[in-house]
């Protein structure tokens, strides 16, 4: 089993996942003979990541081409603005269903099942999907099949034929997810803690119910498609092709489409959680999943580099204050970590999580809260700062060490409207973070009195009880799954 991954199996925003720092006992390490410090570190080989070619078509569609001739494959994708946060709340789940049924339905020329047969025989794929802020269509194949697979993908992009039967299949799959959503403790904790932060009816957290997915029709899927396909598409192709020929082909295909329509501007409100202790009882577990949550920020915020360094010190990885205290020193958790999240176009969450046996729920929660509190009361040291920056900066090139990663990053930046050199400016800003910056962001963003504590665990086993946290009355969260036809009793 993964022995050390703090986050790999847990339920936190991946943005928060990879950080760290250490508190070495003062002075002791100075006595150490450190043979590793004597090992030479040569200059890193020169490396200029190959940037994809960006082409903006007259109608506003943007194309990226990333040649890579190492292996005989070609893959591509079309990213389409608009996702589940934009769907009708009465039909929550529509985009998820759309993402499945689009591909499984197929086109008038070739239905989804026939498409499956054709593609799988070539070890090729065309898949569609729906997410929070976008939907997508992606394809990949061996080089020799690339032209045919591209034609098929294009046909699916422009001429889908949604089938009632495949929508029904997707609805069944989704329903299975809904009735099973309270089986796993981690899944409950992740979902419900986000609802505490954003509110249960927020476009970012409202959940599909049997009734809302049942309300979705084939007409709804077609309407969604017609509405979003005219947006600013981002087309990216990578692999073993000739860029000149590919550019000509993509221009011929996409330049004839109408002028793209801008995405409507969102006006979401983000209030953050109502502070307090929340509890969800789960009788079949012997470990509590504790989530300490609040509102985070977005990446336009100029404080994000300093926050990233702060996160590293708070809860990134092995040497973070949380890991050192709760796991290494107290042995209270296998999984502990977290930090102040930053999303691209809306506030992410602040989230610290600890998984600990029922009986030590209060101890572990207190220990984690103390470290959060310590962000403002326990001064950051130069050792912590240096370490955190080393950790982030020395592994920074893993953000662009493959051509696919470079391409994905450029598509992401294009989608959210960030400059193409964002990573470089971000890295430069990380390098400049000072102790004063850390103190400033901690004071500005860490407010323990604005955080909610959610515990999912086995009530009778949690002794001492959560009231020992002395954070007010415990609020029980009802996670009963509404049955269609019955009165919806929550929210």
């Amino acid at each position, binding site marked *: 089993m993964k022995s050390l991954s703090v986050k790999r199996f847990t339920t936190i925003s991946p943005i928060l996942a990879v950080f760290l720092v250490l508190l070495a006992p003062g002075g002791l390490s100075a006595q150490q003979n450190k043979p*590793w410090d004597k090992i030479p570190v040569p200059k890193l080989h020169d490396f200029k990541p190959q940037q994809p070619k960006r082409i903006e078509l007259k109608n506003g569609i943007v194309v990226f081409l990333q040649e890579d001739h190492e292996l005989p494959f070609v893959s591509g994708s079309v990213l389409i603005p608009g996702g589940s946060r934009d769907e009708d709340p009465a039909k929550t789940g529509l985009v998820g269903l759309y993402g499945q049924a689009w591909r499984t339905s197929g086109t008038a020329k070739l239905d989804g099942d026939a498409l499956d047969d054709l593609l799988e*025989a070539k070890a090729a794929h065309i898949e569609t999907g729906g997410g929070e802020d976008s939907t997508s269509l992606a394809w990949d194949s061996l080089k020799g099949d690339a032209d045919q697979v591209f034609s098929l993908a294009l046909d699916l992009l422009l001429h889908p034929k949604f089938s009632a039967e495949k929508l029904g299949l997707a609805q069944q*799959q989704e329903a299975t997810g809904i009735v099973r*959503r309270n*089986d*796993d403790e981690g899944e409950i904790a992740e979902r419900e803690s986000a609802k505490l932060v954003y509110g249960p009816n927020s476009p970012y957290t409202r959940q599909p119910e049997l009734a809302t997915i049942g309300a979705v029709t084939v007409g709804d899927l077609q309407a969604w498609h017609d509405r979003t396909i005219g947006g600013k598409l981002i087309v990216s192709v990578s692999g073993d092709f000739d860029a000149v020929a590919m550019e000509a082909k993509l221009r011929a295909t996409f330049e004839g489409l109408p002028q793209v329509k801008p995405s409507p501007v969102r006006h979401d409100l983000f209030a953050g959680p109502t502070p307090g202790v929340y509890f969800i009882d789960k009788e079949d577990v012997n470990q509590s999943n504790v989530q300490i949550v609040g509102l985070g920020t977005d990446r336009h915020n100029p404080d994000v580099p300093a926050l990233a360094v702060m996160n590293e010190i708070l809860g990134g990885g092995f040497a973070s204050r949380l890991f050192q205290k709760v796991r290494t020193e107290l042995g209270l958790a296998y999984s502990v970590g977290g930090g102040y999240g930053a999303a691209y176009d809306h506030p992410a969450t602040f989230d610290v999580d600890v998984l600990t046996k029922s009986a030590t729920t209060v101890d572990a929660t207190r220990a984690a809260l103390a470290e959060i509190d310590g962000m403002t009361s326990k001064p950051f040291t130069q050792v912590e700062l240096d370490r955190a920056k080393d950790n982030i900066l020395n592994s920074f090139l893993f953000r662009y060490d493959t051509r696919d990663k470079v391409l994905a990053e450029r598509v992401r930046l294009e989608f959210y409207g960030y400059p193409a050199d964002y990573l470089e400016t971000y890295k430069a800003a990380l390098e400049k973070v000072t102790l004063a910056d850390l103190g400033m962001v901690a004071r500005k963003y860490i407010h323990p009195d604005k955080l909610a504590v959610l515990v999912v665990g086995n009530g009778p086993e949690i002794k001492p009880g959560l009231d020992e946290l002395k954070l007010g009355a415990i609020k029980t969260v009802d996670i009963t799954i509404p049955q269609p036809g019955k009165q919806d009793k929550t929210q």
Partner: protein
Amino acid sequence: MQSRILPWSTRWILVLFVALAALSIAGAKAQDLKSFEQRITTKVLPNGLTLIICERPDAPVFSYSTFIDAGDVNDPSGESGLAHMFEHLAFKGTSEIGTTDYAAEKIALAKVEAANDAYEAEYLKAVGRDENKLAELKKAFIDAQAEAHKFVIPNQFTDIAERSGAEGLNAETGLDDTRYFWSMPENRLELWAYLESSRLADTVPREFYKERDVVIEERRMRTDSNPIGRLIEQFAATAYVAHNYGRSSIGWPSEVSQINATEAMEFHKKYYVGANVVVAVVGDVKAAEALPMLEKYFSKVPAGPKPEEMTTVEPKQFAEKTVTIREQTQPIYVEGYHRPSYRDPNDNVYDAISDILSNGRVSRLYRSLVRDQQIAAEAAGFSGFPGDKYPGLFAFLAVPLPGHTPAEMRDAIHKEIDKLKTADVTDDELAMYKTRTRADLLRGLADNQGLANDLAEYQTRYGDWRELFLQLDKVDKVTKADIRRVANEVFVSSNRTSAEIDTEAPAGNSKQAGGAQ
């Protein structure tokens, strides 16, 4: 491999279950092998340790995989979870890393061990345990740990690695083997060689008992508090009567909670010997320049004979077995049939069956149970659970749609099995398996870490990394008759173990003890 069990969110149940059993894909074209032969250097050191270097200088980074040919299947009786516990210890530093004064720490650690022995001796007394004495011994044990802790620089090993740019630093222990891995900028190759060889050769049982608590939390997370974790543990325990594949790989609670540091270090001494270790490095590394340096560091790993093979062979199953878990979670059905190990000449035939039954929306189980009958959200058949170094299971899993039952899953799966036994698969199905296997192998070559893992694994498993490519010949030779023959040999009821979760109503009376209110 238990290591790969993730928290299940419904859509991924199957993916996860399959992932934990997945074999690395085999097969490729000869010309690819040739190109790899030019870029790969293999060297067996005098201590028996094998180094593999694959030059892939696209970006100034490298990934490595250290593959130990020992896992929890090798845990001695009464010490289940030991291999995994040792893996945690391998992150705690060495006599140089993580200590302020190793000479003094060593003495303090010996006292910790003696205090633990004294405490355990009293604790385990079946008759005449003295509770006062036990409390005193426990205090002495805790005090001894505190004394040893004074010399510790916590997490220094991982700190050095991460400050030097380590990415994806982790390890996995499965029943079959133990793997350590990360990626780094290429200019830290020597630092990595120092760190990796030190922790293999010079492990110190530092903070062992705290780490044991951490591992028990890991068990609570993966197994006790997770419906699939519970199901898998019971399924394997029921399927095996003699072989260690039936044993909880993270360890039974009573055993893992009493493993001591002496036992962990004995495991290290026996299994972490050169002949049992393969280290593969893939990336921006020049073998000619790096080899002398790597040789210097990795020669520190003690030489030792390859540990003896396990003698226990699971006896032939002659009675069908079933486990039913009744609880308030949603239903799942799984069944398995004993099959031979990966060394069996029919190994690729099982891969073909798995592919035809389970791979994608064209697969038989998807089309039958999901698309046409509309009784399951997901369904698949796959090899490699709970391991494949020794005879494992060919397992089937199905997740019922709301309103459908495990019994319906079982019947539908059995119909599909009967089809395999009574009629040949189609030419198209067989060709698809071969095409996809070849393409998947090629796709995997683009990733340094994945390639390092595969090279180390194939070198260990077959004595030659080339087998990763050469297996394609065997894949090409699989016939329709092979599939039908193997299905008839293996998928018989007397060779079957099934396990299911039956959903119990949450009504008040049915609630288990301790669940008041």
